[in-house]
């Protein structure tokens, strides 16, 4: 059992938890993820590590309620436990293995969207701890949905906030903020690291390709085991099949087939929707899980 030491709702539908998982806390690096399973009947849910405390042996996760399983997870309180918590999984971010003196001379731009702010945070923090300061753009739908602002402020070089509706910070999409920094303010970046919804990463990559900035993205496809055993997480990168859980989750964004990845992400959406309905409405809703789902819906 993996005990929850702290649980809070960051904003509507987005939750943060510190979970006791000493083995993971000891060995994890930025860019890696964990798989949580709530109870005997729960799904295996991949979540990027948002922070870690090696001394306390804890891992911080941040998640948004999107299906039945995350809804059940959101009900957990301090003192409750996850039945299973596995990791760290996947490869660490590329920069972790780079020479620090080389890194220090690099201009790095992070672009975070929505809950993607959570996985960006440990990367910016790791770099700051190693003496590298980076520019960070955080995009949210509106002020309400912005998370980890103060935490990010403490570790970022320059922090730029954008909201779709202009309720806070720059009004517009993260891509417009990138254009503003590069085209108008003349900033030069050697690498951009973009983490957020698939559609955001796709548009950031289209732009940075034009601007000639190498871009790394972190993919979150459907997963089951997270150890390379099932292939559910496969994505096309540069025309090759990669398993995001072991070869990734971070890839060269200019090589990722986002359209395919977005379609694959939808595969169980109708299934998840049904499961959520069942959870909220109890047995009155008789969805036929597994059966009769012709696949094309």
């Amino acid at each position, binding site marked *: 059992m993996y005990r929850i030491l702290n649980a809070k709702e960051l904003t509507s539908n987005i939750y943060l938890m510190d979970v006791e998982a000493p083995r993971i806390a000891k060995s994890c690096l930025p860019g890696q993820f964990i798989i949580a399973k709530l109870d005997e*009947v729960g799904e295996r849910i991949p979540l990027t590590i948002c922070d870690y405390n090696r001394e306390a042996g804890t891992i911080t996760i941040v998640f948004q309620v999107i299906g039945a399983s995350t809804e059940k997870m959101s009900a957990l309180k301090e003192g409750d436990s996850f039945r299973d918590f596995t*990791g760290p*999984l996947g490869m660490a971010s590329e920069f972790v293995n780079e020479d620090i003196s080389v890194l220090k001379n690099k201009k790095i731009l992070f672009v975070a969207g929505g809950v993607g702010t959570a996985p960006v945070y440990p990367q910016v923090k790791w770099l700051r701890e190693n003496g590298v300061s980076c520019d960070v753009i955080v995009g949210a739908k509106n002020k309400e949905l912005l998370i980890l602002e103060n935490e990010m402020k403490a570790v970022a070089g320059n922090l730029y906030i954008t909201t779709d509706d202009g309720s806070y910070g720059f009004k517009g999409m993260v891509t417009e903020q990138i254009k503003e920094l590069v085209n108008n303010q003349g900033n030069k970046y050697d690498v951009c690291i973009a983490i957020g919804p698939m559609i955001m990463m796709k548009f950031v990559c289209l732009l940075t390709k034009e601007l000639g900035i190498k871009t790394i993205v972190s993919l979150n496809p459907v997963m089951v085991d997270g*150890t390379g*055993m*099932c*292939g559910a997480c496969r994505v096309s990168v540069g025309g090759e099949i990669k398993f995001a859980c072991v070869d990734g989750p971070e890839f060269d964004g200019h090589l990722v087939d986002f359209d395919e990845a977005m379609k694959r992400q939808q*595969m169980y959406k109708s299934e998840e929707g049904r499961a959520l309905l069942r959870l909220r409405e109890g047995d009155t809703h008789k969805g036929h899980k597994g*059966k009769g789902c012709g*696949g094309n819906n």
Partner: protein
Amino acid sequence: MDVLKKVPVREQDAKVRATNFDEVCLGYNMEEAMEEASRCLKCNNAQCVKGCPVGINIPEFVNKVQAGDIKAAADVIAEASALPAVCGRVCPQESQCEGKCIRGIKGEAISIGKLERFVADWSRENGVVPEKPANTNGKKVAVIGSGPAGLTCAGDLAKLGYEVTIFEALHKAGGVLVYGIPEFRLPKDTVVQHEIENVKKLGVKIETNVVVGKSVTIDELLEEEGFDAIFVGSGAGLPRFMGIPGENANGVFSANEYLTRNNLMKAFREDYDTPIIGGKKVAVVGGGNVAMDAARTALRLGAEVHIIYRRSEEELPARVEEVHHAKEEGVIFDLLTNPTEIIVDENGWVKGMKLIKMELGEPDASGRRSPVEIPDSEYELELDTVIMSLGTSPNPLISSTTKGLEINKRKCIVAEEVNGKTTKEGVYAGGDAVTGAATVILAMEAGKKGAKGIHEYLSSK
């Protein structure tokens, strides 16, 4: 009674079982088992024993069954095998013990597997439990992976007095026995769980959710966590795909994914959260045990199922019994055909498959007749789900994170056959991780040899 024929074993009716996940074969009862045992000729030069990879004293245990002394029969089997309830169900007996049976020359071989299963089930139901050794020798061994290789190795070492911890990546122990082989062939809660409990009763600790190579490395286990030796039984779990167009479409799965969702995550049960797309019309590509299991699972989830295999029936690598059961249940075999493309609709979902007919050419150097395409024989099959069952290879997670552990061209860990010794001191390996995907009994044998190898190594240190 016709001595030339096996005592028939009771099975669920094919029509009924095609709609449920309960075990297909119901096994012998005492009377049937004793009758079947009486067909045994008790040969002086028993060939069956030579066919069993772990050398169970078959005539001896069959003799005990005939006499009705099942406890004694269980003791005979236990000398050689740690997982008889599993092996009795899933061993390819027709090419091992039963394939060599003298009775089988004129009539049908003795049902050795069914008798073994009967003995093991009887022992379980009658509470025969293994005993924990009184003292440990203070030496610590880590076993990576809790499949048949790991469980066997851990059990044997615990009996010798070692303190053994199994590290398992998934949340449940058992390896392929829990995530791959379906419930209707190998019941999880009764049979598999019981074998795992028995290993625990010997004093073995099992730590799940530890991915060795990620959560902790082999070098750290040896240097920081104080383990004196390691056995790697991490299996061959990495699925292969064909590399044909359309393979990443929605509705295309590896057999591992499909089976894991259904077996490990229990997607077939309404009370479990993990979803599975059952499909209405499913093609399973491949002809091995894994393909049969995927096909029969899809059938039970309500689909029309086609097995697509490029050679003929004779070459099907699956066990004869599985092919027979699949046919009885209504799986359609499209033999001598090979997919060339998966047809995808505008939303990214599978809508069909392009196939080409094959014929068997001249035997090649290995004596196998290889399939060749028949020109202009392409055709299309309408489908909504495709399951790829093309084999698996060992996962590089461990080899790539362990200094000095060599692998071969096929990504398998290099280890000596007699004792599982690898190229790294103190590290032993066996099972699918060394041989590539093979069988339960061979993995078990490798686990035994690994335990012996580790015992010799630590005794001489």
